């Protein structure tokens, strides 16, 4: 009897050690991974690499930010109304189920498949060259599911008394949505958009065949219709992720390794800071709203 209890106790201790070791190993690996990228990246960060000249990364960084901004605009223009539709207009049942299924399918598509679709529709069928605009559209397709589901969650988490109070004052449905629900849900939707942006920075496979692998812009050219103008979205725009891919697979430049390291570090900083910002914002909101979720 006693030995059976002791055996069970030993087993329990042993398994606790196993789980502790497993979790510890995983955490150490992850920290080592980020630490390596950070040290490599910031160690090689020189004024030349951060410049906008040839061999610098300024243009790629600008392209990344610009592309994610455009993609956010597109995906919120379609995703937020689609979320409103799901939450406020669609009748519960078949319609909601179909749209939800669509959202889920979209969110699980491999990004290279979306990239091919973007290549076919935005490049081949419009007969244009690789451009930033097509890249932004492709990335916005990848962001759509997140933006839509965040909008739905934000609207559904509002107390029903907001709607009843508004209807009681004689407001129409659209007035209720536009004047009451959307302003109240705005911070949460914003959180979702920040999260979506964080994902967008890291996107590469969707951009390979849409945004193009080169960038040639001149910072003294402010004629938006010119292909050399930074702000013209209809020009090839290589992002940081594509730059890493190109550097590591083609390695044409002498300092390719250093550039790739710096790109990786910048990307991690961007992604982590955006995701931390979204987390902090939603934590703050939960506290303000009584934390009853």
């Amino acid at each position: 009897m006693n030995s059976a209890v002791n055996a069970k106790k030993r087993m329990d201790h042993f398994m606790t050690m196993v789980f502790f070791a497993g979790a510890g190993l995983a955490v150490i690996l992850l920290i080592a991974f980020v630490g390596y990228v950070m040290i490599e990246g910031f160690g090689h960060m020189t004024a030349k690499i951060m410049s906008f000249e040839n061999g610098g990364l300024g243009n790629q960084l600008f392209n990344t930010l610009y592309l994610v901004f455009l993609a956010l605009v597109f995906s919120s223009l379609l995703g937020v109304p689609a979320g409103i539709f799901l939450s406020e207009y669609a009748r519960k049942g078949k319609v909601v189920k179909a749209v939800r299924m669509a959202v889920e399918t979209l969110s699980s598509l491999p990004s290279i498949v979306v990239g091919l679709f973007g290549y076919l529709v935005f490049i081949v069928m419009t007969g244009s060259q690789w451009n930033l605009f097509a890249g932004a559209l492709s990335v916005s397709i990848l962001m759509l599911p997140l933006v839509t589901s965040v909008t739905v969650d934000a609207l559904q988490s509002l107390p029903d008394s907001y709607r009843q109070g508004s209807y009681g004052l004689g407001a129409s449905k659209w007035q209720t949505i536009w004047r009451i629900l959307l302003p109240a849900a705005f911070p949460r939707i914003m959180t979702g958009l920040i999260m979506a942006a964080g994902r967008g920075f890291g996107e590469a496979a969707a951009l390979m065949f849409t945004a193009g692998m080169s960038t040639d812009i001149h910072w003294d050219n402010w004629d938006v219709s010119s292909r050399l103008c930074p702000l013209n979205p209809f020009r090839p725009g290589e992002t940081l992720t594509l730059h890493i891919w190109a550097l590591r697979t083609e390695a044409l430049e002498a300092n390719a390794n250093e550039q790739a390291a710096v790109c990786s570090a910048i990307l991690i900083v961007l992604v982590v800071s955006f995701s931390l910002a979204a987390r902090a914002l939603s934590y703050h909101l939960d506290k303000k709203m009584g934390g009853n979720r």
Partner: protein
Amino acid sequence: MTSITSAVKKAHRDERTARIFITACGLIMTLIPFLIGIFLFVKGTDTFTTFHHPLSEFLFSGEWDPSDTAEGGGKIGSAMFITGSLAVCGLSLIFALPLCLASAIFMTEIATPQMRRMVQPAVELFTGIPSVVYGFVGMTVLIPFLRKIFPMPFGFSLLAAGIVLAVMIYPTITTMAADAMTSVPQAWREASYGLGATRWETIAHVVLPAAKGGIVTGIILGLARAFGEALAVAMVIGQMKVFPKSLFLPASTLTTAISADMGGAMEGGEYSAALWTMALLLFILSFIFIFIIHTMNDMFTLKGDKR
């Protein structure tokens, strides 16, 4: 007409416009995955309709020699890419799963709430790290390391791809598994302890079986991510167009084949048609993954375990 009636009229007009606009956006959103599916289907079936290859050749033949012309006549057997994808995914799951389960159990059952609040966000942060960064670190650190400890000619190998993918799917599976374990009612654990079970027995006989559904969902989501990942794999697998025979030799997957060759293949040719068929296969597979998750969710809720 008084100002009130005109305001009401305007409100009604806005109401109609808004309803139409919002419904249209909802419909477009729903149509996008269908559109993607239709386009992929149209492009992907060219291999079978225009170039008259049987489906069995695409799926089971290992002879890959498509001609880059509109006439066709090459061979489009993609079995080596399909087996490559399967091998890499299986390998990554074997590496990742023990660590995922250990971390999830540690977070939910062993760590104090404060520790958990530290570890879980850290793990979730890793889902967002760009895949090319994983690929870059894999190339600069993992591959020289592997070459040092194993007898392998290049370092670029199935094994390297499996390890990189394992790191990528680790956060996905861990988060899902931890969520599933958290939602197991505390009372069940207390009942188990009350019967004299140790913590390990409680975990093995109560928590894990109760959280099974969530864990399997996490595994499928992780596999779906691994299947669709292109660039990180392409950077470390070596992209040799052979069957995956050894862990230590290069191979190819569906995604690496597409990302490497689509840019150079002639639009409308047999080569690009074959690559589109692979993309169609990826689309169908990701659809199947979702379907499995749904049927599983139904299965587990029908059992009537009231949470």
